[in-house]
């Protein structure tokens, strides 16, 4: 680690102010950022900690019936407090990493980072969530822009994520044996007006919606409906743990199983 200053704001406004300092970077749970700092792969001069900002923490339902999660809310808290409102999302949170990771890591950190194998991006995109920052609201469809790429601008902070609650949903993940991140995972959400399917872990372009499956499931919400669909392996990740073809194959299996778990 290189030396850095730490700011501990207690409001979003102060955090935004602190972010104006030269080479400032926000830090939430530190579960991604601290290993990066330890490996000396990042050298911010100021770390702006978001974990002391109460207005960025918590889980509640808004008037529009959306589940609203503060950007600095830990996975463990979402697992516990969202269960009654949106069980599929709570279950996603409950299966991230291990207890230590869940007690530190936050939803804001996860979707700001947009790791191509992370869980929350699938939950947010699959639910059609809205990402609220200190500046604006961004639809999930516009927010996730590729591997580690988001619509966030320099210094912009994710303050809240609002999830429309589907009539039913399920997150099915296949673990990468070493990291236990998803090798491939599918988030399937069934709404009154259609089905959304988001896939993580598989693509070189990060989380994405699987349009063919959405259409097929929209017409017939049954595991069989996706059985015949093939995914093109061209843009899929190929590494030690699975070839592009294998990942493409798992997309179908995970989606089918998610649907089966719902119906």
């Amino acid at each position: 680690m290189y030396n850095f200053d730490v700011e501990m704001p207690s409001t979003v406004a102060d955090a935004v102010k602190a972010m104006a300092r030269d080479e400032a970077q926000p830090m939430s749970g530190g579960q991604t950022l601290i290993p990066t700092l330890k490996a000396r792969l990042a050298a911010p001069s100021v770390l702006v900690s978001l974990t002391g900002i109460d207005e960025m923490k918590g889980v509640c339902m808004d008037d529009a019936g959306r589940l609203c999660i503060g950007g600095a809310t830990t996975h463990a808290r979402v697992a516990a407090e969202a269960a009654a409102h949106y069980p599929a999302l709570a279950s996603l949170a409950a299966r991230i990493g291990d207890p230590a990771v869940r007690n530190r890591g936050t939803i804001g950190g996860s979707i700001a980072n947009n790791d191509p194998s992370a869980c929350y991006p699938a939950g947010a995109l699959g639910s059609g969530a809205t990402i609220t920052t200190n500046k604006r609201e961004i639809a999930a469809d516009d927010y996730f822009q590729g591997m580690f790429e988001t619509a966030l601008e320099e210094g912009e902070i994710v303050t809240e994520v609002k999830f429309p609650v589907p009539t039913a949903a399920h997150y099915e993940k296949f673990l990468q044996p070493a990291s236990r991140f998803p090798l491939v995972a599918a988030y399937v959400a069934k709404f009154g007006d259609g089905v959304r399917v988001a896939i993580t872990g598989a693509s070189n372009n990060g989380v994405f919606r699987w349009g063919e499956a959405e259409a097929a499931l929209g017409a017939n919400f049954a595991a069989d409906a996706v059985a015949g669909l093939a995914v093109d392996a061209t843009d899929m990740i190929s590494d030690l743990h699975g070839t592009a073809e294998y990942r493409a194959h798992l997309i179908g299996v995970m989606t089918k199983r998610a649907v089966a778990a719902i119906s």
Partner: protein
Amino acid sequence: MPKDGGIGASSKRREDVRFLTGNGNYTDDINKRGQAHVFFLRSDVAHGVLKSVDTAAAAAMDGVVQIFTGADFEAIGGMPCGWQVTDKNGEVMQEPKHPVLAHGKVRHVGEPIAAVVADTLAQARDAAEAIVVEIDDLPAVINMKNAVKEGATKVHDDLTSNLCYDWALGAENKDAVDAAFKNAAHVTTLELVNNRLVANPMEPRVALGDYNRSDDQHTLYTTSQNPHVIRLLMGAFVLGIPEHKLRVVAPDVGGGFGTKIFHYQEEAFCTFAAKACNRPVKWTSSRSEAFISDAHGRDHVSKIELALDADNNFTALRTDTYANMGAYLSTFAPSVPTWLHGILMAGNYKTPVIYVNVKAVFTNTVPVDAYRGAGRPEATYQLERLVDKAAHELKVDPIALRRQNFITEFPYATPVAVEYDTGDYVATMDKLEEISDLAGFAARRKASEAKGKLRGFGVNCYIEACGIAPSNLVGQLGARAGLYESATVRVNATGGLVVMTGSHSHGQGHETSFAQVVAEMIGIDENMIEIVHGDTSKVPMGMGTYGSRSIAVGGSAMVRATEKIIAKAKKIASHLLEASESDIELKDGAFSVAGTDKSVAWGDVTLAAYVPHNYPLEDIEPGLEETAFYDPSNFTYPSGAYACEVELDPETGQVTIERFSAADDFGNIINPMIVTGQVHGGLAQGIGQALLENCVYDDEGQLLSASYMDYAMPRASDLPMYDVDHSCQTPCTHNPLGVKGCGEAGAIGSPPSVVNAVLDAMRSGGHDIGHIDMPVSPSRVWAAMQKS
């Protein structure tokens, strides 16, 4: 009735109290006044000419004490290799120089180029970043078969090629082997890879060098399995420090698995720098450094063939193995694929003629050396996969084929240079069939199939050679060390005693099991016995712990020393009891005169030894302290039969281990609970190799599995509850305790049955693929099933 103490009791591990309450004393817990820290700048390229290392800017940075490069070590010896293999033509192996810090060339990612000593670790690391290194990249030599081709880039320019040696065992049988293959009714051939592994002990390596100007004494605190070996190798061959001026301490060590046997550059560096800087110098490996600097394990590519006659008797075996040495020869690397591997190729079978050929190859990778089992897992895996494949080709039951070919008479001289003293392979197989509930498998398979899963059952046998080893024999085979063990038993005046053993415990529980043996012999409470190890200034010259040798060799030394103690104590007792020495009996901690009620307690005798008022001073010296060195006359040969039962998800290729059963014959057992624990740990590592672990380099020599994000360690959730049995006991005939050693069996015996089970499951789903390499990852299983 289970005993509550002594030999055969499941005494609780006394050392666990300190380990589990955070009171262990590990090397990193030791800090010396004024200590400086070293950071090693390591090569990030696999192969290249080291043009220049400019340390000027770095040396001027805050806190920097001194910066060392390869040039500072030119006048100093390199890292020695402890075993010289002679090849099949009678030539000695090619042995490259192994510098403490890279000189002239870098030869693997992770090789230390410079060492920065500074007040703090952060300062050392900052300064290391300011060192300017110029390297002209060379093509990396990674693939072993390419490495030995004509004209291949050489890892070491001063060697004739990348071939370290081309070794053979059973050369005298080669013609007979070839003839048997010509006349065979059936030949089974198998090509396989034994995947490279990273040992990953929980505690990373640490070295702390200290130098005392007043008496010119060097001390090295280090995470070692064998401090005396380090003292000898480092003192004599690297730094030129006489042994009486060098103390090596290996305190609590958090796991070794072989990778802490070897003498490493960081140890030599810290010892050297402590004197050069006149300050204690400490290095603690990070986990990332461990991946690129701890010796790796396994990494064999083999072709193996079995000839059978028309009645399915094995008539000959032939193997051809490429063994990766990495860039340099780690301390015992040459012995692993040869004398710890070739001599096991007979396995549990009476194959009359065997020919083993092993080519050891230099590559631009981290050196490879012994890892739990060392050579024996590689032998077992080849043989037990091959026998299984033969059974399926011949459409006979794999267990029946094994039983038919078992060695049943002991002692048995194999065609590969060793003589098994005892064993009962039929008994362990019978026991295995019972504990694995083979009879219930068909029903369990049905139940799995009803859930859309495939289920497979795989077995294997194993034999291993441990209790390493007779010194005169290993000397002939190229060892540059003796492999005896030592113990001193120091009895105190009030009857308590200390055993100073040359064995080293890094998780095995010696403090408990060794005490049990002495307690049994004397008839005193285990708590009166302290076991001391790991400090060359306290214990007699010992060879340390590896090769499942501690109880078989170290325990035997301790028995011999205790026998001497008892013999002397009897003399003292006979004096005190005014009886003839031959009438004195020792039982339950008291000496009595046979056939009388006259007796004297152990504590009275020990007191007399140190307060010799009424004592036969004219016949014996006062005091009660004895040392013994024990050199075994043979290896010991634990054996057993293992069964694995897997469930396979045909849609994803995911394999889960549903049952694992191990029936072992370890001879006599000192502490059944500790033995069970050793088997459990070994099985976890064997299953880890079979299902999960894989150390992979790309063509440029970059390590792809360089952290836990990509290197999959087995976790509790990957493993079933094991069924472990060690009631089959054929005691070793040549050591006083009749023990065989149990530390490596689990890791040696488990991989083949896992793979055999996976293949069985795949066959049951109509996919007869013949072989699949480890680790049997979901991706590989799925891909194999697509093709068949």
